[in-house]
């Protein structure tokens, strides 16, 4: 973990990959939208992003309840880990364990060779999102920069 970051999330997340008020009505459209935007920002293949996100999602829903989902994928030939955050305009059905649709979605794309990183990132994300204060502050953020600041400032307790 780099010294300047409090947690792995802010290490791989950038304001350009934080998108609030995205208009999508399904997970399929969500993944496609994210694939396209990541292609724009990082040059990676949108199709490969979508395919890999889906194959993980089919293993079991990445929604963890309380309106949060953590979709992730390992991508061949990906040079560096990329995180992205989406807040959809309308809550998305995501087969969550509490039955509730999802309002806060944190993505992780990981290179093939660093497995522990993915597990660590997601464990941290789950912990971070399990804090009701964090969730409230996050939902109060009105722009990507404040979302980024919030993630950057979060310290595992």
């Amino acid at each position, binding site marked *: 973990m780099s010294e300047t970051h409090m947690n792995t999330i802010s290490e791989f997340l950038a304001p350009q990959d934080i998108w609030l008020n995205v208009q999508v009505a399904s997970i399929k459209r969500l993944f496609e939208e994210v694939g396209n935007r990541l292609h724009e920002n990082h040059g990676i293949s949108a199709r490969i992003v979508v395919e890999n996100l889906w194959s993980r999602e089919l293993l079991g829903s990445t929604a963890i309840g*309380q*309106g949060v989902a953590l979709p992730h994928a390992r991508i061949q030939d990906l040079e560096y880990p990329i995180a992205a955050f989406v807040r959809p305009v309308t809550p998305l059905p995501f087969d969550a364990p509490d*039955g509730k649709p999802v309002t806060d979605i944190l993505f992780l794309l990981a290179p093939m060779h660093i497995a522990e990183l993915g597990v660590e990132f997601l464990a941290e994300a*789950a912990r971070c999102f399990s804090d009701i204060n964090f969730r409230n502050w996050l939902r109060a953020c009105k722009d990507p920069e404040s979302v980024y600041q919030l993630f950057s400032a979060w310290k595992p307790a």
Partner: protein
Amino acid sequence: MSLLPVSHEQKTRVLSEALPYIQSFHGKTFVIKYGGNAMTEPALKASFARDVALLRLVGIRPIIVHGGGPQINELLKKMDVVSEFRNGMRVTDEQTMNAVEMVLGELNQEIVGLLNQHGCRAVGLSGQDGHFIHAKKIHLKADGDSHSAIDLGFVGDVDHIDSELIHLLNSKNFVPVVMPIGVGSEGEAYNINADLVAGKLAEALQGEKLILMTNTPGVLDKNGKLITFATASNVETWFADGTIHGGMMPKLESALRAVKNGVKSVHIIDGRVPNGLLLEVLTNEGVGTTILSDLHSHFHEDTKRYFSV
């Protein structure tokens, strides 16, 4: 808990955001155990009734189970009946049972009336109706020096539930309001803990949610902080390490059994929050503690497996 004024913007946002939740829960069965302040304070009673009416209107199937402990205590006091308690349960002789049935019957009708006033078609039921709650007597093992079992009288446990009557009422969009009285094998009536009845009913119906209304913010950890989310395994740990005690125990026992037997999630919510029921169901944040079955909390295992291949 402070109440912040809600702006018009917030109100419309909440309303428009409610649609995906309504879609998620349409047709699903929620068993709601009603008690505490929500059952005694006029403003909370009204907001509860409106919440139930709204849930029913949007296609959710609410079933209400109510308690009546404080009211039973009050009547017995007026009757100069002194109750003996063993393991937190009231020894219930015939006279006491009559008082219990009277109080619960009255409360039941009051709740039915309240719900009807707010637009529901509520139907009051006792477990005796249609013989739907089969009860069995609780036998406490002897404590201390005594070698004989303690007779609690007419205190029962749920043996099994025949849900046909409830299905019938649900199918015609009625809201069943159930008082926690069951029938034994000889036709005798038993008083059963309402949290227990609610849990068993949720299991029998394979309900989507069991919601237990309490007078606390939810389940609190050892530092008094609210635990918003937990799995069945977490709850088992709490029993082992003393995080739960007192009044929370029967609720969590009921919750644990429910999620292990097919109920998708259990919510222990703060009944003192106006519209707490709606907030819990129709927004992403709740007003208490959500407990999920271990079956539905496989995210971490799936993730480990995914990254280890």
